[in-house]
């Protein structure tokens, strides 16, 4: 009896642990794990999905030279359809480029002010406001482009149509600025205070401290912020669809109407027959966009992470 006792106690112990709390514990463990890996599962799932939809076309029908070099996007032409996205790439690139010209000064200025000058309540309320700005839905931005910017541009610059690179670039710049501000401010905050103290101890003025020391120490993080803004610009759809004029065009000036890659998918996918060449070509654009934004965001993330680990 006395020999068997310890082992039966052990068995009882084991049984004891498997009560309700034990199961809940296990369940929560599994749920948290699923939550943790869900982002990876989703991104792989999405990639597999768009690749499967567009891959047949990518391998069989698609002429890569035509796809990237031809400006003619005429997927529904009955006699000789052409699938060139050069004009669409030019549209997206020109709008994003102008957006960065608008957003970089804005967001950098805002980040320097919030990070280095503003204090107390002012700083907190500014940060909340910037985040609020980031939460404005893109269709609202598009609406601003369509109904406010359009007549304004016609009036100011005396051009026939106000839906063009300038309109979309400004709208997109204002859309990208908040997120760029947040990340740029994080980058400034990551610069150790001892750098600033050392510079001030050397007799540097406040501007000298910011320009010569803080900005150059934070330059990787700031570059990351700009790259994330570029990624946002490439992926934005609704506002760009509404503000660019949706014209297939290789722009010669900021007053030319253009069309973005994303807007093309948004405007056309709903009305194509599933599995047709047009449908698959749109998915191929999707793959292209996915790869570009993935590379940009990954680069930005690595740069930002690099500075944090230093």
């Amino acid at each position, binding site marked *: 009896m006395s020999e068997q006792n310890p082992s039966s106690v052990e068995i009882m112990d084991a049984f004891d642990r498997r009560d309700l709390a034990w199961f809940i514990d296990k369940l929560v463990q599994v749920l948290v794990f699923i939550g943790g890996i869900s982002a990876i599962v989703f991104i792989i799932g999405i990639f597999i999905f768009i690749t499967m939809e567009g891959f047949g076309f990518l391998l069989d029908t698609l002429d890569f030279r035509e796809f990237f070099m031809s400006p003619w996007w*005429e997927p*529904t*032409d009955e006699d000789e359809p052409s699938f060139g996205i050069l004009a669409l790439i030019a549209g997206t690139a020109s709008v994003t480029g102008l957006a960065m010209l608008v957003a970089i000064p804005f967001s950098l200025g805002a980040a320097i002010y919030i990070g280095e000058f503003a204090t107390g309540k002012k700083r907190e309320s500014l940060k909340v406001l910037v985040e609020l700005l980031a939460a404005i839905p893109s269709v609202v931005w598009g609406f601003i482009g369509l109904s406010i910017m359009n007549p304004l541009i016609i009036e100011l610059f005396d051009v*026939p*149509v106000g839906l063009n690179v300038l309109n979309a670039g400004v709208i997109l710049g204002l859309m990208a600025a908040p997120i760029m501000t947040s990340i740029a401010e994080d980058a400034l905050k990551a610069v150790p205070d001892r750098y600033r103290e050392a510079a001030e101890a050397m007799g540097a003025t406040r501007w000298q401290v910011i320009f010569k020391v803080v900005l150059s120490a934070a330059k990787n993080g700031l570059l990351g912020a700009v790259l994330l803004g570029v990624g946002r610009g490439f992926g934005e759809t609704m506002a760009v669809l509404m503000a660019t*004029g*949706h*014209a297939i065009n290789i722009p010669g000036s900021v007053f030319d109407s253009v069309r973005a890659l994303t807007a093309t998918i948004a405007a056309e996918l709903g*009305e194509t027959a*599933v599995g047709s060449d047009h449908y698959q070509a749109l998915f191929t654009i999707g793959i292209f966009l996915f790869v570009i934004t993935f590379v940009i965001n990954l680069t930005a993330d690595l740069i930002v992470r690099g500075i944090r680990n230093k």
Partner: protein
Amino acid sequence: MRATRHLTAVAAIICLVSTSVSARTVIQNKGSDTLVNVAQAWAEEYRNVDSEVAVAVSGGGSGTGIAAMINGTVDIANASRKMKKKEIKRAKDAGQNPIEHVVGYDALAVFLHNDNPINTLSIAQLAKIYGRGGGAENWSDLGVTVPGCKKGKIVVVSRQNNSGTYAYYQKAVLKTAAKAGVIAKSKYRMGTLDMHGSKDVVDLVEKTPCAIGYSGLAYATDHIKMACIATEEGKDCVSPSVKTASDRSYPIARPLLMYTNGEPQGAVKAYMDWILSDAGQCILKKKGYAPVRDVSCN
């Protein structure tokens, strides 16, 4: 034993449900946005004709309706363009047999800003404006100056490439002109503003002195000018109207089509017959489209 009892219960329920459903036949009708208003009006009116039949109408564009016909999910597909050879082949491969019915005509009006001095345009001139390598970039190329359009550049407004209106305009204007040798290829030029709906085209042209656009006659407003269209320069022009579309004298009027899967039968046949009757055609006429034949409506 218990299992059989369950099965009988389920079977009884299924019988009950199916009898109550079969009392009301549902016709699925989908497609062209040009036709959707008329299709809706037909469906509403048909309730008074045959209360046993319900017609479910949705829009989405000719392409959407035709895709649904290929996939076999609709009884009637509405289209403002003919099915392409490829689409017919795909439908046949999928076991469907789409049959075309002309249910009306729609004149495609060419819209100009009210300040534009032009009243008449020929097909060749339209092709020079819209076609690739057509050469008409400025209003001065057509011999006019438009007040309010300072730089003189023509703002060419078109539709997105899966619209039935886009495809018909390409065929009726660009292909015709290409055959006559006015332009080299029946393709649109680069840089047209591709609007996502007929109403957007009208809105933009209304506000833009430099613009030219096209859409269905039913979308015209009082604040916009419609060009009189001549088949050849110097010939008499025809203004777009329900009458000129109906008697086929207007050169860019397109048939409005409904596709059924096989020859229509039963409730679908009764519905199609009613649409082509005087009652159905009058509803179409009231919505601004041209009936297939002369009808007198009150």
